[in-house]
């Protein structure tokens, strides 16, 4: 191929991407150059008869058509202002309903738990009242002394326990250092 102008400009000329001046110059060249004329005619013929939509195009199935038309038509309608508000309200209503249902269920469960605890305490107090009163026994001096000893023992025991506990805490460094020395 002696002329390589087609290689450089032919495709851009055919797609209309040359500027006006370049286009005119190239059109004039095509009329004069037999090689470029041949290339141009061949390409035009191919585009018309071989590369047409009838040859290269295809038709999707009716199901596919219907699905695309359905989704795209509905989808675009949803984007309009009024439909955004209605969508927002719809979603808010659903959220509110779910919240109320949840709140009611939790409230009911708490209420049931309270009810189930009440009879127990009622039964406890009932038992206490139901137990027959012990006959009053005369309190002797020896018994009183014994009770006093028991009380004193328990106080001492508690204070020892407390001291031990404090000691333990002390060891862990909870108390100030000067207390530790004491």
């Amino acid at each position, binding site marked *: 191929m002696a002329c390589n102008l087609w290689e450089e400009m032919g*495709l851009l000329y055919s797609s209309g991407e040359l500027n006006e001046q370049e286009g005119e110059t190239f059109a004039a060249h095509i009329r004069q150059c037999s090689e470029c004329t041949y290339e141009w005619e061949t390409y035009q013929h191919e585009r018309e008869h*071989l590369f047409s939509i009838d040859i*290269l*195009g*295809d038709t999707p199935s009716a199901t*596919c058509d219907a699905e695309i038309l359905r989704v*795209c*038509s509905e989808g675009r*309608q949803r984007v309009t202002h009024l439909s955004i508000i209605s969508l927002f309200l719809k979603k808010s209503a659903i959220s509110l309903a779910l919240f109320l249902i949840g709140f009611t269920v939790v409230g009911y469960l708490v209420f049931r738990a309270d009810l189930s605890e009440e009879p127990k305490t009622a039964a406890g107090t009932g038992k206490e009242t139901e137990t027959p009163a012990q006959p009053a026994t005369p309190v002797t001096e020896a018994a009183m002394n014994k009770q006093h000893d028991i009380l004193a023992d328990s106080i001492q025991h508690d204070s020892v326990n407390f001291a031990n506990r404090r000691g333990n805490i002390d060891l862990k460094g909870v108390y100030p250092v000067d207390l530790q020395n004491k």
Partner: protein
Amino acid sequence: MQELMQNNNEDDQGAFDLWLKGDTKGFSTLYEKYKNRVFGFLIRMTGNREIAEDLLQETFFAALRNADQFDRGRSFLSWLFGIAHKRTIDYFRHVKVESEHKEDAENAVGSRIDRPDKELSNKNIQAIVRDAVAELDPLQREVFLLREMAGVPFKEIAVIMNCPINTALGRMRLALKNIRKELKKRGIDGV
């Protein structure tokens, strides 16, 4: 011819505006007008009808989602084919990940057929041309289809395919050369 294209663009933009306003007629006009081209592009690229239908749906759904990003300076068809190109790339990436070691090159071109030479009826010409296109290197095929089916200018093809304009032109030249060679082999001469 350019006036015709400009009128076409104006019609498309009118239909597109209707669609944006929620008028279903706007969308169905555009869909009916371009579905065969886009589907043809997808089926030629993937070679599988079912996949092409899935990608067609994805293309139009993506157009729906990104309708607000449509640049009025471009033609609607270029924009739509840009989306179809992205869907195709995503599909091929997915296929590559799924079957990296499978030799599915043969199956990938489902429409490829080895027909015995018969009388060149329209159906046969169609099949031969489709075969010749299927034989192309994927990058050449894509430039060819974007140019011939969507009428996308080379400047935009370069943007869509993220390559210099000269690369797009080079691929187109090679595509035409290879198609002609293949057609000649099967008994069809350009002119």
